[in-house]
């Protein structure tokens, strides 16, 4: 049985039906799915994360977030869109020291490209 957080909002629908759905309804379903996903998030995508030293954790976030932001830029998309309140709250729940880690991440060479103020703005917004 599917858990609540992993419930598929498009269960039983063909792709054609999904594309015919009113956009507002589609957006609402996606928003709900995202909230469920992040509220139920149990890991940060690296099984060894818990064993990392503070320095390794800073490096982990520097590398992974920088990589994803570059992907966005390559595609002409908003690089800060990967940050929002749902994601931030989930990460903070799993890594209570996340804010101080990000303070260090923004001092790292890979992050000279990115704007901390914009990041701080985005993590306050539920998109």
């Amino acid at each position, binding site marked *: 049985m599917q858990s609540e957080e992993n419930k598929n909002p498009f269960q039983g629908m063909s792709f054609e039906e999904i594309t015919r759905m009113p956009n507002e309804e589609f957006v609402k379903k996606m928003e709900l799915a995202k909230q469920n996903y992040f509220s139920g998030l149990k890991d940060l995508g690296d099984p060894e994360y818990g064993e990392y030293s503070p320095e390794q954790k800073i490096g*982990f976030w520097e590398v992974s977030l920088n990589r994803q932001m570059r992907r966005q830029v390559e*595609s002409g998309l908003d690089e800060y869109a990967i940050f929002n309140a749902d994601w931030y709250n989930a990460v903070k729940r799993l890594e209570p020291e996340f804010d101080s880690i990000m303070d260090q991440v923004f001092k790292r060479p890979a992050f000279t490209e990115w704007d901390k103020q914009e990041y701080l703005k985005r993590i306050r917004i539920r998109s």
Partner: protein
Amino acid sequence: MKRNRLIFFLCVLVSCNTVRNVAEVAGISESPSAISTSFADADKAFVLNDTFANSKSFRPLSVLPSASGVYQLRPGFYEIVCKSYCLHAGTHAPSSGDGYLAAPLKGDRRDIIQSILKNSARYPAIKQQDVQMLIWLVLAHVNFKQLSTDLQIASVQLLSAKELFELDGGVMGVISDPTLMGMKVKLPPAAQDALDAENKVRELYEQGVTSYQQYESVAILPGAAPVDQPEYKRGRWCVQPGGFYIRFFPNGYTSTRIQIYVPDLVSGATNSGSYDVSPLKHFMIQWPAWDLTSTVAVPANTTAQRLCMGATGSSGGSSESWWDDPRSSDDWGHRDGAGSFRFPPTPNPVHAPQVPVSPKPAGGVKIPDQNPPVKTPGDNTPDNPDNPGNTPTPSPKPGDVDTGEVRKQLPDCFMKALVSFGLTQGQVLEWFKQYNNDRCSQQFFKLIQDYIKTNPHGLDDCNAYAIWGYTTNLFFRLLNQWLRDDINQDQTKDLTQEIDQALAKLPTYTGKYVYRGIIVPPASLKNFLALYTTGTFNVWNNFTSAGGTESASFAGRPDVNVVFIIEQKTGKDVSALADGIHCGMPPNTPPEILIKSNSTFQSTEDPVFDPSINKWVIHVKQID
């Protein structure tokens, strides 16, 4: 050699006839106005209240990617203070009550004026008064040979050979004074006044007058222009092609503050309430581009100045917090207005003195050093506000390089490609100096030289530098943007060719699938997915990087809503030349896959939502 000269002579002959013909075809005998833009050319639709965004904080326009005065806009509020120039001799300077709208630069000397405006930013040593003088003289049809030595030197810097030819007897130069007078009687009174003023400018020049003030007194009428269209007030917004809005606040005729508002079309916040999805066709969001130098501020009052804008200006922006931001525009290479390429931030602040650019050893490609060296964050030269206390320069570390050493190390062809792209030699040298010394712990030049010596795949030094350069933040943003927009091919072709050549030489990645995640704005997501139904083809003009495993691609669980599972055909593992692998701390996990530009992908099944990862999964197969 003789053959080349003959060809050149024939070309000149053809050009001469062509120019005359163009003049005739364009009806120049009926309209002698070199720049014809008028209020009639402006979109006068009332689109936003004059008070709209009055309380907003505007970011400096210079934070956006730009080249040669063309800005790639993004949603938000921006501002720039430009050097502006009078395009209409014999009219009043702007006053505080004049309403200005935007109109395109038009007329027979449009290209010449635009070249002057664009290139004036590349040569900040040329005074604004000289640029203005040159514009007036071009509008007054003064022959190039009649220009003073100083203005001839400025012209050579600001104009191409073809444009100089046109000034040297081309078009208006071959039309006699009696002909011009004949034209005048056919013109409306306002245009006759302008022609009179242009004639006076020309007479002054022919009399040998050199005082700028005398020309200004002819070109700029004293007092405020009579208000003949009071409904157009100062601060009026006007809509531009591409769906963004601008308004002008001239300060005299020499300086104009421009505010730009770009609505977030992609998130669905359009005025009409509909969603703009067409840009997604190319797997990207295309924001509008705006060419500052092709925009004329036209007054509602018919006897006030038309104004054109130089390619760069001071940054503008009214937010205190923005100026406090250590990454504010001055740190991005725009302080002196030199060059309009947004120079990416250097890897780390450094405290090293400016090092003179070393000349290239004989035999190398000669690359003009057109601009002064870029000031970088932390630069401790006396006028740098980032370091008012002039912190002492730390001792260099073993392996540190200066710009002279960088010049020796960088291959000429790579330097040439970067200069063609829009960077200056000084910017490139400074960037790689800091990249080696700070970001890459003094190891960059050693690592890449080691690779070039031993590489088993036959990459030449240019290929290797181009790939490594791509993986840094030096040019990947603008390069991909221009490739997607299919613009500035002259600037992108060398770099693109080097990268694509390198990728062609590298062995194809052995993994069948590579993975790439993105977040598409939720309001546009459904329409985006519809572009990837089974069997559809999509061309990705930009270079595409991807990870070798799905899990490595989503470490940190960033909020991406689409994952492409790509059955790749030409993906190459560039880990051996990747910034993140060699200079990251800790290093990225290889492989780093890069797929060539302009690749075609076919969807192999309809997109499907996977709730366990909260992403739409799109399966595509690379065709070429």
